[in-house]
């Protein structure tokens, strides 16, 4: 087959390019990951278990899962709504809105965290109201959730907009002309058509939400056992030269990422046509 390709390169060029790519992957991705795992188990399985079951580690894991459990459904719902609005309707300021959706990708997470401080901090815009009602946002769970929401918002929307634009409105119109109400149309036509794309977006969103460090670090306050997420927990242990604990937690985070990756891989191979073309593997 390659012999007929107009893009045929000499075999040695092909082999050299593939080798370089493979070596880079090995050096930059596989080796570090292996190092994390070997360091995590360096002092034996017991030490690894102990490091993960210490109260601070468990609390960090719980907080991370708690954050993900809130962020995923919220982003899924708002992502679908926003993508629907943008893909289906023309309105004033649509282009600006589309550009703004990418803002969390463009802005450094630290800056995003600082924005929250500016809004909810003791000198912030909402400081008085929050004081009056004794609501804590910064250095508490709400701040962490808000920061993570902001950082991960684009994943679902970005996935759904091109998908919905590519699928067009005709199936929905057909459903309406056949007598379906708006809700029936949404649940039986729109949602099934975007389900794999939605799942894919949620998956990416989840991976990012678990791993988010910068923005969460600014708003968390690093209170042990209370406002430390898993990434923050790892950093603290690392700074305290507890490398076994740090790497044990890191191995856990890596495993969660690997699982996400496997599910993503499965989605892409099984349901490529339900995922926006911009993400398709060819």
């Amino acid at each position: 087959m390659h012999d007929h390709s107009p893009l045929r390169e000499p075999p040695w060029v092909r082999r050299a390019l593939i080798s370089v790519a493979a070596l880079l992957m090995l050096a930059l991705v596989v080796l570090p990951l292996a190092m994390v795992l070997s360091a995590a188990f360096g002092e034996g399985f017991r030490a690894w278990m102990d490091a993960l079951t210490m109260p601070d580690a468990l609390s960090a894991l719980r907080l991370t899962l708690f954050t993900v459990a809130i962020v995923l459904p919220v982003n899924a719902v708002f992502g679908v709504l926003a993508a629907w609005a943008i893909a289906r309707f023309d309105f004033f300021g649509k282009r600006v809105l589309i550009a703004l959706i990418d803002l969390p990708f463009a802005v450094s997470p630290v800056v995003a965290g600082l924005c929250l401080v500016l809004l909810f901090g003791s000198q912030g815009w909402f400081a008085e109201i929050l004081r009056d009602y004794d609501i804590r946002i910064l250095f508490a769970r709400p701040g962490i959730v808000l920061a993570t929401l902001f950082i991960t918002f684009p994943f679902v929307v970005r996935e759904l907009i091109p998908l919905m634009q590519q699928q067009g409105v005709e199936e929905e119109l057909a459903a309406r002309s056949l007598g379906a109400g708006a809700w029936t149309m949404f649940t039986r036509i729109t949602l099934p058509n975007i389900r794999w794309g939605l799942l894919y977006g949620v998956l990416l969103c989840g991976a990012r939400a678990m791993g988010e460090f910068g923005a969460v670090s600014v708003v968390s306050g690093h209170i042990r056992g209370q406002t430390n997420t898993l990434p923050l927990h790892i950093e603290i242990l690392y700074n305290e030269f507890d490398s076994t604990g740090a790497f044990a937690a890191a191995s856990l985070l890596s495993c969660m990422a690997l699982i996400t990756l496997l599910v993503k891989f499965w989605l892409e191979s099984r349901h490529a046509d339900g995922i926006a073309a911009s993400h398709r593997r060819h």
Partner: protein
Amino acid sequence: MSNTHIPSTPRPGPPPSRPAPAAPPMPADGAWSSASDARIGLQIRGLSKRFGGVAALDAVDLRIEAGELIALVGPSGSGKTTLLRAIAGLLPADAGEIRFGDRDATALSLRERNVGFVFQHYALFRHMTVAENVAFGLRSRPRARRPPRSAITSRVEELLRLVQLPEHGARYPDQLSGGQKQRIALARALAIEPSVLLLDEPFGALDAKVRVELRRWLRALHEQTGRTTVFVTHDQEEALELADRVVILRDGRIEQVGTPDDIYREPRSAYVFDFIGRSNRIDGRIEDGAFIADGLRLDASAAAGTAAADPGRAGAPPVAGPSQLFVRPHDLALCADGDGDDAGDRLAATVVAVRRRADRITLELALQRHDARWELDLVDHAQPCPAAGAPVRLRLRRWRAYPRSQ
């Protein structure tokens, strides 16, 4: 007009090259066929629609009788699709009225109009099986009007037999060919017993052979169900072959409405004449009841076959003034040598090229005293065919002249 009844053993002629299982008899109750109260006409009055500054529909009036099969035809931008979508309720009209039977449908939504709309690209629900697609309209009804599950299942089976795809219920749309998708889309639209069936370019996305088969099949299906049907096409041949009446649109207005015969024999304007088939033309003028061009004088009031026309009714005296003459390639004849050499009704031309088609020979001609390229169809194969470069003389068997604006 076809006032079709339900045939007892109807058989839409199966497409010739694709043997289909014999169609079963229609259900006796005729639930989804031409129950007489399901057959209503359409009336459109003063319908207008603008996109930006452009009038896509400009005060269109049209009356469609119950059970008619109507073609909306015109080039792109003529407003035919806009009209169809306005009837369906896919587009709100700016002004005017649409009546379904004696009911004012202008303010009704797409959902309330109960039209069967078949989209150009079918718009089948890709995540549902064929059977689920067909059942969708019935399953989506409010609980009070929803038929029981078993009734829906048997209705779906009936419809799949009607469109001759009884074995395809469990397939998914992307496992079907274009023609099969089209028929499923039709079955899905028929499932809700629509008051009218609207089809947007029903054969546009199909290849030529399937298109012809499906065209005949649709005609047969229409005879069988008797449902008022409107379809859009840019293909005049399709419109003429299929429709009871043809509506020709131009720039958002109706240029002519009539039976295919009317339209073909009595095109009311140069636009219609030109749109409906191949045409040759030269400029001239009407004077003293005759069309006059350089070296040509044709009596416009002469006997049948050469009756000249002015727009409007046949038989009226042609309006004097600048005019344009139109003649079809098959209405031209070659004159034998010496035949009427001195008559003023012959045109001298030179053969430029000879093209053989399956059913005819087409001569490409350059008129000698006019700056025009004409085509002539030789239908009679016994006739000797002149070679390229040969001078010939042409007789116009049938022609029409229309006023020319200057």
